């Protein structure tokens, strides 16, 4: 946080939070990430896009008077009084090695590549912790019965934060299973969008090269200015 940003919070109400069991006073209304930085943590890992997309800042927290263990993204979760926080930016996860070209979009891919999937107890613990509010159990169960499309569909907003996997009593790596489902659906089953092919052709024909070069040549200040002035609503996907 730079001086300017700190100046913007002068009259902020301060609240008490606990990070790794140590007490800190931070401005109310901060997100977990800004609160950590306010408290003096220098975040090099466990922080990424700060916009809720990259999944790097997964955090666990508990609230006062509530036995439940909550999961949230550090950049998107606002701190609350007496909150206990720890970041869990990474969950070790086995990942099957495969070549998408050699796979077929058939139910058997799951028994072959992620047989541990069949240990799922349907306890719903993964759904409880998911910061994206996904029906994680349901997408895992879709995979169990070999329903690739439903598994891909229900997991579409997964940002691979890893919290579900850390909590799973069956030690499943939900997000990697989901990734496999989405890749197979994307490659083999989903309707192909013509606009994607068109855009790829445009990229290959160097239509955007000049534009990128222009951005690269800007000074950091000008680049920031351009970023904040961009017309979000006019973005064409």
């Amino acid at each position, binding site marked *: 946080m730079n001086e300017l940003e700190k100046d913007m919070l002068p009259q902020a109400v301060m609240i008490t939070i606990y990070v790794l069991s140590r007490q800190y006073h931070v401005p109310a209304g901060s997100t977990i990430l800004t609160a950590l930085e306010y408290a003096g943590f220098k975040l090099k890992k466990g922080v990424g896009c700060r916009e809720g997309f990259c999944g790097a800042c997964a955090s666990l927290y508990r609230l006062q008077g509530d036995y439940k263990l909550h999961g949230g993204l550090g950049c998107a979760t606002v701190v609350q009084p007496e909150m206990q926080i720890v970041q869990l930016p990474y969950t070790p996860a086995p990942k099957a090695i495969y070549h998408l070209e050699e796979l077929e979009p058939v139910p058997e891919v799951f028994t072959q590549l992620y047989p541990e999937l069949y240990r799922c*107890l*349907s*306890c*719903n613990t993964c759904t*409880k912790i998911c910061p994206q509010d996904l029906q994680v159990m349901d997408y895992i169960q879709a995979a169990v*019965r*070999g329903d690739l499309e439903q598994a891909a569909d229900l997991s579409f907003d997964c940002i691979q934060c890893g919290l579900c996997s850390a909590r799973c009593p069956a030690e499943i790596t939900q997000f990697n299973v989901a990734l496999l489902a989405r890749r197979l659906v994307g490659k083999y089953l989903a309707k192909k969008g013509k606009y994607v092919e068109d855009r790829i052709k445009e990229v290959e024909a160097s239509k955007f090269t000049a534009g990128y070069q222009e951005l690269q040549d800007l000074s950091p200040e000008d680049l920031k200015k351009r970023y904040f002035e961009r017309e979000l609503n006019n973005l064409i996907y």
Partner: protein
Amino acid sequence: MLPQVVMIQIPYYPGCTLKNKASNFETSALAAARALGLELVELPRWNCCGAVFSLSSDDLMRHIAPTNIFLRVQEMNRDHLVEDEYRLVTFCAMCFNVLRRTNQRLRESLEDRNKINDFSYLETETYQGRVEIVHLLELLRSMGWDKIQERVQKPLTGLKVAPYYGCMLLRPKDVGIDDPERPTILEELLRSLGAEPVDFPLKLRCCGSYQTVPNKDLVADLAYDILSRAQKAGAEAITTSCPLCAFNLDFRQKEIQQKYPMFLPIPVFYFSQLMAIAFGLPQEVFGLAGHYANPKTLLATKGYLQATSPLEGG
């Protein structure tokens, strides 16, 4: 003329295997049920039942899966997908066993129920034991075998079928759908369809169940005993209601043939396939693809298949 049927709608739980490896069993079962006026409405959202009932006293975690399924039946009633219908129909013998046994445990223990309801705090409903688990065979029996017989258009006359019960339909006693030592329900079904039930001594003997995962040779031996005893008794085919039995008895014939070269393959039918055939339903719903031991030759020789139409998917 076929008797007029009034359709009734009942919630239905397929289970993982009938949706996947054994989807051919599901096709035939749904079609056969529909022919009898049973419209089985699949739960809009469901999870694996766990396949085996957890036998230890404190292992509540493993009873959550079936409880979720019971809650879905409540939701179907809440959302008017069915009207005041708390019966839940299954075909798969393993699903049936787990669901009914868990339901029994939850009905008996308020403490267990409370613990699971409390654990599943994301659910909008709690479970109090209202759902009733029914196997399709039980539904058939309660309709009356004469009703089944009335629906038959192509009686399976002369088809010698050994009914194989296995474990999960019958045991333990208070869960089973028939006498655990002298069951008759499959024989009655076969007779209603016009087939000839073949009694054989190993019809209640376990096929090895999930031991097929670590020890396929062992299961091949068990399956060999069962199949060859049925053949010795004169059976031309076997029928079962359990997709795991069907897998062990059918697909392990590959290992059997390697170990016992004299063994002649014998087709294994899901009970509903025989119903679909006898009811004269369209050949596509028989689900004859996805077998290991080819069932088509036998059916064709008996004249139950139209030789001219392609057997694709049928």
